[in-house]
């Protein structure tokens, strides 16, 4: 058999090494394994492929997917087709960053450590918070992490979640909450947003309130009011936000949120069929010692020079074990670095402009679709950001199928998650869409619905 390209030992290397070890064969090295647990046959896997064969095989699989380069798509619902600039790919492919482990040895890892410190700074700037961790898995799990913080910070056992929060976030929080011993109460939306009075009635004795801004329907919640009601009841307000909205929408720290978090994908990551992306998680200073996951801090070396290290590690599982603030170890550092590079590329002006372009294009789309007979913009009185719901007068999943036949994916069918919304589509418009593409969406929907 030919030498495998990912291996290096020659026959004579192997012989010499076995001699040094004092073993007669490689098989002898596995002498501690009882015969009963040893596999007595080769693994039943397809034969080895060469690099060019594996490329051909996976390229063929990729060709069978209708991605955003092959289909005009208005899908959003938490994952968005924002532009990812070339600088992101270039930096993330630097082998020194790509192929490093978690920076346990800071003198070997100043590059990643400083980058995380810069990332934490950017997240704090965007959210108006004091401390950010180095990332969580995604926008759903950081919400569950925040509930763990809230449970321990308040000692309470109830969790309030608005129904207009991303359903995937609610589902993941629910899965985790059972182990945390938290009971969940959902506050329904009223015409697309949350009623602060209704929230207030639910929030007594709650550890936290999770809401989303803009919410899952794209509508702007009365966020400052929701936060005030939560704070009045001693519940921690947790804001689930879109980083790309924070050039035009207020930072949650400014209106009193205790924690701010969300899915970072929109800022610097490709959709990639759901991951890997990064979840960001930031908090007010008082929660710094309850934060889950890695945090990088500034310090000095023995010569007095500035440097960076993983810090406050007594919170973490490798030190604190069963009393840790979370079990997380591997996070999403490379994707968060993509976020930092992207946010640096944008700068404050670019961030505001992306937000404004999304606002303009989405408003144009709303207006164009409102003109199509048979379509009706849902929650039409509410301000929205880059996404909005539209009623299509028949089963929205059928409309999706019919529109895809014409080469346009018109959006997410809300009936999957909300009762009484089988005829509703959630339409997302990023800065990657053009007015001409929006016109095409309107034409296709007119044909399908009309």
């Amino acid at each position, binding site marked *: 058999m030919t030498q495998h390209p*990912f291996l290096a030992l020659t026959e004579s290397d192997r012989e010499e090494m076995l001699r040094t070890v004092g073993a007669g064969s490689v098989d002898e090295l596995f002498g501690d*394994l009882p015969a009963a647990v040893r596999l007595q046959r080769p693994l039943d896997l397809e034969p080895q492929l060469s690099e060019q064969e594996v490329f051909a095989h996976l390229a063929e699989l990729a060709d069978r997917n209708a991605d955003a380069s092959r289909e005009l798509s208005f899908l959003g619902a938490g994952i968005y087709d924002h532009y990812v600039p070339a600088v992101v790919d270039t930096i993330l492919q630097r082998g020194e960053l790509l192929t490093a482990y978690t920076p346990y040895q800071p*003198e070997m890892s100043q590059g990643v450590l400083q980058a995380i410190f810069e990332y934490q700074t950017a997240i704090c700037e965007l959210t108006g918070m004091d401390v950010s961790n180095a990332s969580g898995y995604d926008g759903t799990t950081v919400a569950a992490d925040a509930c763990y913080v809230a449970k321990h910070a308040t000692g309470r056992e109830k969790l309030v979640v608005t129904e207009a929060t991303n359903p995937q976030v609610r589902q993941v929080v629910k899965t985790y909450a059972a*182990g945390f011993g938290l009971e969940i109460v959902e506050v329904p939306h009223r015409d697309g947003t949350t009623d602060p009075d209704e929230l207030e009635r639910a929030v007594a004795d709650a550890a936290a309130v999770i809401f989303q801004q803009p919410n899952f329907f794209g509508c702007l919640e009365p966020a400052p009011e929701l936060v005030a009601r939560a704070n009045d009841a001693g519940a921690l307000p947790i804001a689930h936000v879109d980083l790309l909205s924070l050039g035009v929408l*207020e930072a949650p720290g400014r209106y009193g949120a205790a924690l701010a978090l969300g899915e970072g994908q929109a800022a610097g990551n490709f959709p990639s069929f759901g991951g890997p992306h990064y979840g960001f998680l930031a908090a007010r200073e008082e929660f710094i010692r309850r934060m889950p996951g890695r945090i990088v801090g500034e310090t000095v070396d*023995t010569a007095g020079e500035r440097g960076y290290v993983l810090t406050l590690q007594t919170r973490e599982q490798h030190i604190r074990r069963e009393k840790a603030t979370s079990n997380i170890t591997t996070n999403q550092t490379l994707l968060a670095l993509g976020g930092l590079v992207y946010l640096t590329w944008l700068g404050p002006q670019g961030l505001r402009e992306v937000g404004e372009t999304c606002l303009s294009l989405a408003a144009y789309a709303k207006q164009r679709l409102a003109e199509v007979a048979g379509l009706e913009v849902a929650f039409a009185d509410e301000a929205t950001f880059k996404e909005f719901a539209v009623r299509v007068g028949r089963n929205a999943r059928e409309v999706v199928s019919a529109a895809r036949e014409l080469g346009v994916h018109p959006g997410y069918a809300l009936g999957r998650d909300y009762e009484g919304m089988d005829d509703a589509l959630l339409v997302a418009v990023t800065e990657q869409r053009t007015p001409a593409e929006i016109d095409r969406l309107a034409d296709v929907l007119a044909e399908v619905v009309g």
Partner: protein
Amino acid sequence: MKLIYEKSSPGRRASVIPRYENLRAPEVPSDLRRSEPPRLPEVPEFELIRHFTELSTRNFGVDTGFYPLGSCTMKYNPRINERLAALPGFARLHPLQEEEGAQGALELMWRLQEILAEVTGLDAVSLQPAAGSQGELTGLMLVRAYFAARGESEQRRKVVIPDTAHGTNPASVTMAGYELTHVQTDARGNVDVDDLRGKVDEHTAALMLTNPSTLGLFDENIAEIEEIFHGAGALMYYDGANLNAVCGISRPGDMGFDIVHINLHKTFSQPHGGGGPGGGPIAVRDILEPFLPVPAVVRRDDGGFGLDFDRPQTIGKVRGFTGPFGVFVRSYAYIRMWGPRLREMSETAVLNANYVLARLKDAYDLPFDRLCMHEFVVSARSLKKQYGCTALDVAKRLMDYGFHPPTIYFPLIVPEALMVEPTETETKETLDAFCDAMLEIAREAAEQPELLKEAPHNRPVRRLDEVRAAKRPVVKYGFEEHPQPDAEQASAAQSPSGV
């Protein structure tokens, strides 16, 4: 080196954003509108590239050199995997695309599930968990759901963990709402079976075990352990962090384990990215399949692939969508480039580890004198006692020789532990150079201990004060304490990178 914020100057930018002046942007209600812009960096594109390129030169990866970080399996990451994950058909595919528009992605996931079932010797796989520790937590949720379905959830509250376990194990136990039972390690480095017998009963829900353990030793009593747990009606969880030792040689399912997580970023070569992403799929015995997270990726009767949400006994979702798909692309491609030869991967990893161990065991203390699996633990206890040089000092000195240090001070039961995992990557020449450095460092400890205590000497920074960082945490840039630097100075300041 300056922070990117210290290279920033108002008005500079790298991006041009499409604008539509003829479209009217709606007003954001004033109470919801951003009041002050975030202080993101303002730099041109070339300064951005130079900044992050310079950061990369201050970092060390597998691409830079030997990285024997125990328990982390720092192997080579083939570049073709990066090209594949970046194909638009994968990278630009939306996770809520209709099944008919995602057949290639679903097929890839289904095929990976089949492979992982074969490698682990189990029946069903969920790819959803985002990393090993989330796989653990998901596994414990399955345990809870399984016993709830049998009416035993109140009775079975305890999870048994050996003292060699990764810290994630006990942390996951608490997060899943279980109580811990600790079990000791015996004189040969196996789980102490006598200790175990007294601790497993009708209140036990599960065992969490890493095998080979974090000592790099395969538990010789695995059959007996299996009898104890299954005999008591409890389940067995396999922490797959060390799966790289046994692919094609021994399968967790055949050892008796009911649930396994697989670290795709270790055994199956997803690059670790300086801290992540990872992937933590779980494989389970058929009795646990009904409880797996939704949606399940399934092959339909018509030969196509789909997502099945209709699993009434599911624990729910543990992460968004169906998991970190880009990681699956890389790991699937990686495994296909081995095929059944995965066995050679593990055999070589074990040979490399034993060779390095054989060369080092006279110079360092060896807590358990056995052949090792894919990694081993030695101790700097004697160096500390005789010369005052600790495992930390040895680790820092290794940097001067151009190697990433091993994992240190873990597992906790070995004082001054140095945990070395060479992986199957590496030439014999590299392994020899590392061994020579380790032996030289042991000599230096005797002759010039300050060389170790003051190390590293040639990294971008000297030894860093971690106590200070924790005592007075500075976790973001203090704009207020650092007035905006003069613009000209900022762009001219190309300070050498401190070497």
